[in-house]
């Protein structure tokens, strides 16, 4: 003990000698303050794990100079007795824009998109702004600070919330008494990133999340290269990016999928992002954990929807209702899964909602220790400030809260928030507690006066027998003012009671000012607790209790919405007996045949197979086929187009897979097992594809076809020349220009390749790398195409660079150049019968697929449409009608042939021993309009089952009605509700682009 004291003194001396003043003073003498403030007898929460009962701590110059069970008081001390009170470290928010105004949106004279950057001497893209420093924009905001004080915060990490790479944030103590010099704890405390563009520039690129991801990657690569001194020009942004490299990197996201995407980039570049989440992390705990990131989690629990009107209630989805139900348990689940997190107030009205919501999270199972750590020690550690912030210890900033008791008890009052030794009063500490039931004697009548609530917000009710009077209590600085109005509301006549209360006395006495202007004395005699017990009871009954019950949390399903799985399908051993099997192989269509599925593969095909322990499915009268493959799809995507440049080979659809899209399930119900998720057709060279298995319920990464062949989307014609949308300033505006775009980019790619070979420190260009893959035949092209001239052109361009166009997708005039395609070696994927929607589809004919097929081209029928894709079997059947293709061949148009075009026919596309068990059991001939998919398997797992679907429908109805009841209860209790508005996520900034497929 002695040693500790000694150490403590040494420390004090040390501190004093450091604090040397050097600012001149002209408005008086210096009057230095050298007193100590001693807080004693408090229960001190030194850290989430450590508590000192009856502890003492000493504060001087904004810092704690000593803390412990018994600490000696320096002579020059002001002593504050905190008997019965508790002390916590003030909170820290890692994600804030405190004191920094949001930049104003840049405007321009016209509505034409802007392709070039505004800035010079910086990076080529205006949305990369690592040189931005929060310090240059900071102005202490007293109003916001007060609100944060009340919520318990002592320090925030603030930044300019603008841009994709946003520059550095600063750590600020919310000390209203000091100067900026005192408050700024760190001027370059972290670097911030997001997927959102800067408002300061209208530069078009990137228009999508995948574009933002590609841009971040390229900027990282460029910074590394720049750091080697290889650039001829000055780039202040890249220099800043290199300078910021070793700071904490905080990535702001606003939805769960984006949070995982940030994690993905972090893992690629070995950056440990701290990720700002959105409160829905619990829906994908495993994947969240796998990011390895610490999460900054908001407490913005959604309000219940106002579902009183049943017509309106119809428009709230199960997902929205479930999210309302589950959100308060998010933090608990994160803690349970040992995912590190901090808590932010950035998405809330801090003063009003922060503590309530935090307490709500605790009531839903978050431990107090975890809650406290998330607000103190964890953020301090992330900022490397654990010696100065987050714990109450010698040398740390005197940032602490004084409360009436356990912070997490809702009855507890927060009295004061001290920051850097400056006191902020939130609720007066020494307010007399006058709660209780009194006999109020006034003018010879005895009333029952009941005062309840926390000291800072006490309420009164007054009754005379059964009659309730109007009563309004205001109580401050130990003066009580009670305004009484008659029970009969039609009458006026107020009585005002005024009294000064005294801690030492239970009874209250004072002066009453009557409605006639006269004054008289009154007394209120406090009843004993046994006397009041009775009164309590009937109070409960008519009390307007806005407390929310703790709801039962609905289990998370995958995805967390209608038709999600509560348990993921498992690999099964299944024997389909006695089916008509469309093999797509030489055997053709086999009648009365058994197919055994084992270990995710088609294990045996034959007659009267031995079932072993397989689950037997009687397929008599039914048809078994391989799964439908859609060569051209845009389902399950958070973005379709990156339209900011005329070539965007650097972006990939694999970055923006949305595994929660209901279209996945609806496609499974139509027998679809694999799709190529293609980039849109906003530009001649689009983005790379994602080939997906429609494994509903899995996460984005697991849906991507293993060892996917590499693909990219090209586009031709009206869309890329922006005939029906977009600007008239982007090259190309004609088909003539389209050819030049391709020729130019491939020429540059060749030059890049050559230069790269001679230089080890060559700047890696993700776009050029992709184009090289195409030229080197490592990446296949699927080209959106309509008219014959452009189809012919693209083949010639490819031939000039010695590669081939793999697929012309939704090619509609393929029939006009089928001979040339054959010679070139291109495949053709087409709409069955679409036409007349654009000028360039005037000559589109439903005989296109049959003609291409007749000329020996690998022909497929694709959807490009979420509605049609779930009926692709019927679209294939149209080739029987138009052009008389045999049923067997027509079926291949949507199964084996697209598998060939996607180079996955070694794994899927036919019913063959050894291939993946991607199978569909149909009620009828699969080409029949009357056929229904009854079971859809992917790799031996049943992802759609028509009987299970029936059960899911019932479950959805049950869950909906349960949640609607819960929401009605919430509304009935007077809790806040939100009007029904179905929010639809818009990831694509220029929304018209959604149409450009």
């Amino acid at each position, binding site marked *: 003990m002695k040693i500790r004291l000694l150490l403590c003194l040494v420390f004090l001396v040390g501190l004093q000698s450091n604090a040397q003043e050097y600012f001149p003073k002209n408005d008086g003498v210096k009057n230095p303050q050298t007193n100590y403030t001693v807080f004693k007898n408090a229960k001190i929460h030194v850290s989430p794990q450590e508590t000192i009962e009856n502890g003492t701590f000493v504060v001087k110059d904004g810092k704690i100079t000593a803390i412990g069970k018994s600490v000696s008081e320096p002579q020059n001390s002001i002593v504050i007795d905190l008997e019965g009170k508790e002390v916590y470290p003030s909170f820290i928010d890692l994600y804030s824009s405190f004191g920094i105004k949001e930049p104003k949106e840049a405007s321009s004279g016209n509505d034409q998109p802007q392709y070039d950057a505004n800035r010079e001497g910086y990076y080529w893209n205006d949305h990369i702004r690592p040189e931005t420093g929060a310090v240059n924009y900071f102005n202490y905001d007293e109003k916001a600070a007060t609100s944060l004080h009340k919520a318990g915060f002592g320090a925030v990490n603030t930044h300019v919330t603008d841009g994709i790479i946003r520059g550095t944030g600063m750590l600020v103590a919310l000390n209203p008494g000091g100067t900026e010099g005192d408050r700024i704890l760190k001027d370059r405390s972290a670097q911030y990133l997001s997927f959102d563009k800067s408002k300061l520039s209208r530069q078009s690129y990137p228009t999508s999340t995948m574009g933002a991801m590609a841009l971040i990657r390229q900027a990282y690569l460029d910074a590394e290269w720049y750091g080697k001194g290889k650039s001829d020009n000055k780039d202040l942004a890249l220099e800043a990016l290199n300078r910021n490299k070793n700071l904490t990197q905080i990535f702001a996201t606003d939805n769960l999928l984006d949070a995982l995407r940030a994690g993905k980039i972090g893992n690629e570049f070995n950056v440990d992002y701290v990720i700002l989440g959105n409160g829905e992390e619990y829906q994908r705990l495993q994947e969240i954990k796998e990011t390895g990131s610490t999460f900054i989690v908001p407490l913005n629990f959604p309000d219940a929807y106002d579902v009183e009107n049943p017509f309106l209630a119809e428009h709230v989805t199960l997902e929205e209702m479930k999210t309302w139900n589950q959100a308060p348990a998010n933090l608990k689940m994160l803690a349970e899964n040992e995912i590190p997190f901090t808590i932010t107030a950035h998405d809330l009205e801090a003063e009003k909602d922060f503590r309530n919501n935090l307490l709500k999270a605790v009531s839903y199972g978050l431990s107090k220790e975890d809650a406290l750590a998330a607000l103190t020690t964890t953020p301090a550690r992330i900022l490397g400030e654990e010696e100065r912030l987050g714990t109450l210890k010698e040398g740390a900033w005197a940032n602490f809260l004084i409360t009436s008791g356990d912070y997490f008890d809702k009855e507890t009052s927060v009295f004061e928030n001290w920051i850097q030794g400056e006191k902020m009063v939130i609720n007066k500490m020494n307010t007399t507690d006058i709660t209780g039931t009194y006999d109020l004697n006034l003018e010879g009548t005895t009333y029952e006066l009941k005062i309840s609530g926390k000291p800072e917000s006490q309420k009164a009710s007054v009754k005379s027998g059964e009659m309730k009077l109007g009563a309004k209590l205001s109580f401050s600085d130990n003066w009580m003012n009670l305004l009484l109005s008659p029970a009969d509301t039609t009458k006026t006549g107020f009585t005002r009671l005024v009294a000064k209360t005294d801690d030492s006395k239970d009874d209250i006495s004072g002066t009453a000012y009557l409605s006639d202007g006269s004054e008289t004395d009154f007394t209120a005699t406090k009843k004993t607790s046994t006397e009041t017990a009775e009164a309590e009871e009937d109070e409960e009954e008519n009390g307007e209790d806005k407390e929310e019950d703790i709801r039962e949390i609905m289990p998370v399903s995958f995805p967390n919405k209608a038709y999600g799985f509560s348990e993921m399908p498992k690999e099964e051993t299944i024997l389909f007996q006695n089916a008509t099997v469309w093999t797509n192989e030489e055997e053709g269509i086999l009648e009365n045949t058994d197919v055994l599925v084992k270990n995710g593969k088609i294990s045996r095909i034959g007659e009267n197979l031995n079932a072993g322990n397989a689950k037997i499915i009687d397929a008599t009268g039914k048809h078994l086929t391989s799964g439908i493959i859609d060569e051209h799809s845009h389902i399950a995507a958070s973005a379709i187009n990156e339209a900011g440049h005329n070539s965007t080979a650097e972006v990939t659809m694999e970055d923006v897979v949305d595994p929660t899209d209901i279209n996945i399930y609806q496609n499974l119900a139509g027998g679809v097992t694999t799709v190529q998720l293609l980039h849109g057709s906003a530009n001649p060279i689009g983005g790379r594809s994602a080939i997906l298995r429609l494994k509903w319920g899995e996460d984005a990464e697991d849906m991507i076809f293993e060892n996917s062949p590499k693909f990219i989307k090209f586009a031709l014609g009206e869309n890329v020349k922006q005939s029906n949308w977009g600007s008239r300033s982007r090259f190309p505006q004609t088909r003539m220009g389209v050819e030049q775009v391709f020729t130019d980019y491939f020429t540059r790619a060749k030059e890049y390749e050559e230069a790269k070979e001679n230089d080890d420190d060559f700047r890696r260009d993700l776009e050029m790398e992709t184009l090289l893959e195409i030229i080197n035949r490592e990446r296949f092209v699927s080209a959106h195409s309509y008219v014959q001239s452009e189809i012919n052109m693209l083949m010639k361009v490819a031939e000039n660079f010695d590669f081939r166009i793999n697929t012309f997708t939704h090619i509609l005039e393929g029939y006009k150049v089928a001979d040339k395609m054959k010679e070139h070696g291109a495949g053709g994927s087409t709409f069955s019968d679409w036409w007349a929607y654009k*000028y360039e589809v005037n000559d589109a004919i439903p005989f296109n697929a049959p003609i291409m097929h007749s000329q020996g081209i690998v022909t497929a029928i694709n959807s490009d449409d979420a*509605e049609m894709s779930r009926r692709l079997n019927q679209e294939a059947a149209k080739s029987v009608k138009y052009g008389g293709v045999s049923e067997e061949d027509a079926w291949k148009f949507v199964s084996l042939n697209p598998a060939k075009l996607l180079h996955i026919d070694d794994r899927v596309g036919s019913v063959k021993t050894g291939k993946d068990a991607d199978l569909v059991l149909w009620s009828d001939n699969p080409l029949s309009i009357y056929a229904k998919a009854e079971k859809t398997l992917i790799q031996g797992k049943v992802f759609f089952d028509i009987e299970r679907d029936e059960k899911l429908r019932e479950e959805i109805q049950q869950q909906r009605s349960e949640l609607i009841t819960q929401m009605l209860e919430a509304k009935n209790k007077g809790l806040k509700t939100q009007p029904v*508005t179905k929010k639809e996520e818009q990831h694509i900034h220029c929304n018209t682009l959604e149409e450009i497929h």
Partner: protein
Amino acid sequence: MKMKYLVLLALFTCIGNSFAQQTPASKQTEAITIVGATAHLGNGETIENSLIIFEDGKITQVLDATATKMQYRGRIIEAEGKHVYPGFIAPNATLGLVEVDAVRATDDEDEIGSMLPHIRSIIAYNAESKLVESMRPNGVLMGQIVPRGGTISGTSSIVQFDAWNWEDAVIKEDDGLHINWPSSFTRGRWWAGEEPGIKPSEGYQEDLLKLEEFFASAKAYLEGGNDKTNLAYDAMKNVFNGEKRVFIHVDGKKEILDVIDFKQDHELEHLVIVGGYEAHKAIEELKENNISVLVQRPHDQPNSEDHDYDFPYKLAGILHNKGVLVALESSGSMERMNTRNLPFYAGTAGAYGLGKEEALKLITSNTAKILGIDDMVGTLEKGKTATLFISEGDALDMRGNVLTHAFIQGREVSLETHQTELYKRYMDKYDSASK
């Protein structure tokens, strides 16, 4: 010589381009007898081995060939193993009003203004549209041509799909008034800076009131005593006297119930709901008020991710099986070119709760009843117009819908189109190259 050849070629190309449309067939002059086909009458019945005779554009006999000794008349078409259907009718269509969706100059479907009963689709109907001719090879031989947009979009007419001009095409002129019922929900117009998503419409009651006022004013005006002509009100005359049917495009249950009140208030005899996504929630009310429904195209997606994946497939079946008079319409995305898929919409309804013959009614007899032309078309019955076709197989299934003959008013119409011509042209090219 060379010059002459070039001129000829130019002329030929010119003709090829401007006269790509098929020439309308001339009047039926000779009786036609179809023997041996399975006749799908359109009223739910079939005749396995049928005998159908038509003369002067009218059906004179529909009989069981095995049970009659009726003399064959005129030209005889042997159709064993084939199927005969009444011509399919596409209600709520916009064929002939737009040629290419993305080319504004070809778009005549939506006039400006909100109360436009006087706007008539028929005069803009392009009988020579390449889209119209593409209906015939699929058995879609008639349609109701409807203007779009506004609250009262205008007045539709019913046409047959083989005519020189709109006047010749008419089956029933100015048959219906089309109203887009206000919605009690609006979708946030993100392009105007609003939150995207569905929200309650603040203007719903106001919009209803405007419609009410328009009807009331028109009624008052039509009582007489005006010294000036109001074209819009004049066009309402046949609505109030019941000659012009009222088609209300509406989806939600609440709105449907409001439509029913509207029908009662204005004593509208024939009222048809178009779309009707939630019509199954008001079945009893619809039946009590004798309201029929043109159900939106079944090849569509559910409106909410919570809904059954097959809901659009089965809606017509649910209504029909509960006794509501139902037919199918094909409006929606790329509706003109998609209208030729009407038979397959019926096929889908057949698969989801109806069966083939009941499903067939939804594009034949029921449609005719709803449009008020069932005295002329919609079934294979004696006395009806001979608008019918012969198919190789089940015409509601893609594989079977292969037409060998089609007749409109007894006239044998061409089954060739711009598309079949291109098909033949290019197959010829490849065939001759391979020889």
